């Protein structure tokens, strides 16, 4: 025999469940509408941008023979959006890798899927390295076409970091992904599990030892006081 009180309690809980279900469905619909509105308001794709302005950017192109980074100024139509700017700049850098007679040949059509920016958490003594972290999502095609070896892989990472920092000075740290995923190495050697600092201009020189300055000033560890200073 079910008491009257238990019946009442059962129906009250049933009504509460239905009410909560309706409430959650409405919340979900609202979130979908909000995301759709954000997507509509987001900047157009690079190719469709109409507000791009012609600017001169500096690309740091590696030279495999002497381990150096060679600055190369190039005029590019840059969109207003920073993420899109970074993508355009890095696309130009990858194009330089692919160009005939390249000093760092990587034959790949599309090298960077996307670039995201994150604020760098400021600690007590991190004032010198405050800025933004660029998360560079490389394409799997670039990783597959990347010549394997410590030198070629390190030079690719260095040139991306130096190019980003030269044109977007707020970028002080760089983290790399491949096709949106964390990966251990670029092509068997250079570590992609860590975050690199890109806080200084590379001291580009010419000659056999030029890379010493360039690498030691740019490729440093996470806490920012590299040995090469």
């Amino acid at each position, binding site marked *: 025999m079910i008491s009257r009180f238990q019946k009442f309690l059962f129906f009250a809980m049933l009504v509460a469940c239905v009410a909560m279900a309706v409430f959650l469905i409405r919340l979900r619909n609202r979130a979908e509408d909000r995301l759709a509105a954000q997507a509509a308001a987001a900047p157009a794709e690079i190719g469709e941008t109409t507000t791009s302005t012609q600017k001169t950017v500096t690309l740091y192109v590696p030279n495999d023979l002497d381990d150096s980074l060679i600055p190369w100024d190039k005029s590019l139509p840059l969109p207003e959006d920073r993420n899109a700017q970074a993508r355009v700049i890095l696309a130009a850098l990858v194009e330089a890798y692919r160009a005939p007679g390249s000093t760092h040949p990587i034959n790949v059509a599309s090298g960077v899927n996307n670039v995201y920016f994150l604020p760098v958490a400021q600690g007590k003594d991190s004032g010198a390295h405050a800025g933004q972290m660029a998360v560079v999502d490389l394409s799997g095609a670039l990783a597959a076409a990347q010549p394997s*070896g410590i030198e070629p892989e390190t030079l690719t990472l260095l040139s991306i970091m130096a190019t980003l920092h030269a044109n977007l000075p707020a970028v002080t740290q760089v983290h790399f992904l491949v096709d949106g995923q964390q990966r251990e190495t670029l092509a068997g050697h250079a570590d992609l599990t860590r975050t690199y600092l890109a806080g200084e201009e590379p001291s580009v020189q010419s000659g056999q*030892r030029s890379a010493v300055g360039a690498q030691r000033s740019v490729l440093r560890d996470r806490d920012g006081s590299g*040995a090469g200073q």
Partner: protein
Amino acid sequence: MRWIEAAGAILLAAMASGAQQSPPPVHPLPPGPAVPAIPAPVNPPGVQPPRFLVVIDAAHGGNDIGARIESGVLEKDVTLGLAGRLRSTLHARGVDVVMTRTTDVNLAAVNRAEAANRVQASACLVIHATATGSGVHLYTSSLTPAANERFLPWGSAQSAYVTESMKLESEIDSALAHAAIPVTLGKASVAPMDSIACPEVAVEMAPLVGGHVTSSRALTDVSYQKSVVDAVAAALDQWRSDWKP
């Protein structure tokens, strides 16, 4: 039950004061005849003096083939061959060598670091090869130099040895320059370098591109490999003469 707590507190206080007030008994040495000071033995009896030992890590192996140097030539085979030649040359010079691998096997980075750290080596060389660039590329860890503590974090153990590693790199650089082999120096983040607790350099051998003073040599050229191995062995010999355990 307050009296129990009070009694306990009194007892603890009494024990503490007793510990402070009763220092261990001191037994003064009786005045004896003046004797000349005897230098302390360098090593306690039964303990072997630290020996000069080099760890050679032939990178890659097994499924991890490394770079494809040219048709049919894989980095894992080149590094193993170079490591074997270097071991023989060092043995001939009277240097003890431990290799992380002597066959074509998969070896995780953590196992390589563990093998190197277990023997407390005087120098560690990580051998790589690439088809890109020219000459020999020498790399040290990109970690910040740090003081040598009793316990080192596994992921950054090399930080206590970065300064020594750069000295070793300089020795190898000089020896290769003496052998007229072009060298590039740099810093890199490559596993397992940051976890190795000894002076350590990654030696990456590339083909020799012809220039004003050099002639073109393939990476598989035996005489080119021999000249690199001889130069590195000479540098380690020099490192041994400067080595202080």
